[in-house]
């Protein structure tokens, strides 16, 4: 399966400069692609477009040859955001967060080190690292074919970072999921990715 972006351009409504200009890229199942660009080059925007959160002004996103927007229901391209505290409803317990996902397997929950006692808590009652594990688990439901990780370990400590990435690598290999990695850390990209893409060279 292939996720591709065909000549995508994007500009935010508030009249700021063009964020993406005629971007072409692709990624295949089982591939771990690292996205490199200075800040302000639209890495987050790129993820949002690939996951269908934003509509590009021009061009289209294709999954398996079909426009991404034609997939109804659970979106096979899932994105994990940088700030987990914004990604979960503060008034719902964490077990509800897991239930939102598409049948998250126990293997994923265990693999991420999620402890049963956290499930009955509210998001404000766990640490940032614990919360991010829930967001990752939720995005790894059965229907996920591509996973976009936008600086997901930036705010966590290095141990949590390596726990999460070690798990993600084994999980995406096992399920042949395509993984897009956005990180400012060169060392992390070296460790995780099978291929790298520099937005500046587009």
């Amino acid at each position, binding site marked *: 399966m292939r996720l591709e972006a065909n000549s995508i351009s994007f500009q935010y409504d508030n009249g700021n400069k063009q964020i993406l200009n005629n971007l072409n890229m692709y990624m295949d199942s089982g591939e771990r692609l690292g996205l490199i660009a200075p800040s302000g080059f639209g890495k987050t925007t790129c993820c949002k477009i690939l996951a269908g*959160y934003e509509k590009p002004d021009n061009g289209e996103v294709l999954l398996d040859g079909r426009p991404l927007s034609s997939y109804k229901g659970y979106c096979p391209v899932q*994105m994990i955001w940088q700030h987990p505290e914004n*990604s979960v409803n503060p008034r719902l317990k964490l077990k509800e967060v897991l239930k939102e996902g598409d049948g998250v397997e126990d293997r994923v929950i265990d693999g991420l080190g999620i402890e049963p006692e956290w499930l009955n808590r509210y998001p404000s009652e766990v640490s940032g690292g614990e919360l991010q594990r829930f967001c990752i688990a939720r995005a790894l439901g059965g229907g996920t074919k591509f996973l976009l990780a936008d600086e997901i370990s930036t705010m966590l400590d290095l141990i949590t970072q390596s726990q999460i990435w070690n798990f993600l690598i084994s999980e995406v290999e096992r399920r042949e999921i395509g993984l897009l990695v956005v990180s400012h850390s060169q060392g992390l990209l070296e460790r995780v990715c099978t291929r790298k893409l520099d937005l500046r060279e587009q």
Partner: protein
Amino acid sequence: MKLWNGRKSMVCLLVLFISLLAAVTIAGQLYKTEALVTDFSRKNMPPCFSHPFGTDWMGRDMFARTLTGLSMSIRIGLLTAAVSTTFAFLLGLFAASMGKAADGLVVGLIDLVMGIPHILLLVLISFALGKGFKGVVVGISLTHWTSLARLIRGEVLQLKESQYIKIARKLGHGGFETALKHMTPHLIPQLLVGLVLLFPHAILHEASITFLGFGLSSEQPAIGVILSESMKYLAMGKWWLALFPGAFLVVVVLLFHLTGEMVGRLMDPGALHQ
């Protein structure tokens, strides 16, 4: 503001207020017949031990009449506030989640209703429906939903933009399901507070239009009726006819207002750290 050293005392106070209001409502029902009994042997008595609020020109006990009137007011308040809140919730949700045209329609309606002075619209509706209980309830219900509807609409619009709701949509959950699961926990506290804070408005407006003669009929011992009837006796020095019913109306309104404020404070997650 210091919260009377902590939330526990606030909850105690809340329980006290609510039981007081409930007591008044129930007592009013029990005194219903007593309030209508006339006895010319005891007319125009100032407050004394057997008649703490005095009696009127027909020898009716003012204590019983006041309680019954308050009870009536509270029940009307409860009914109209509930109807208004439901109205506000549905319209607010409709406006915010059904697209631009629906939004324009509801906002226009809100502006229209808000543009006309409350009391005028109330009098018109009540009069058109033949006054009485029905007129008052429909009138108040139709005029009091606007500000809450606007609040709910704003809240839903804001929630719709939040990241976790967008994520829920991508996880394959439908619009209605998301609204129910993600928005209700945020909206319920707002609604509850809105409901309680609508009470005093509803009660005061009921009393006002009844006082003006467009509300409840004069046989019913409503506060508005009591006050308007007492007007001509006030000049004759019968001060107790207006003082007690008026003062207790203010007390009930204040109790409702404080209850609403406290419920709001207790439910507001932003006040968690107080």
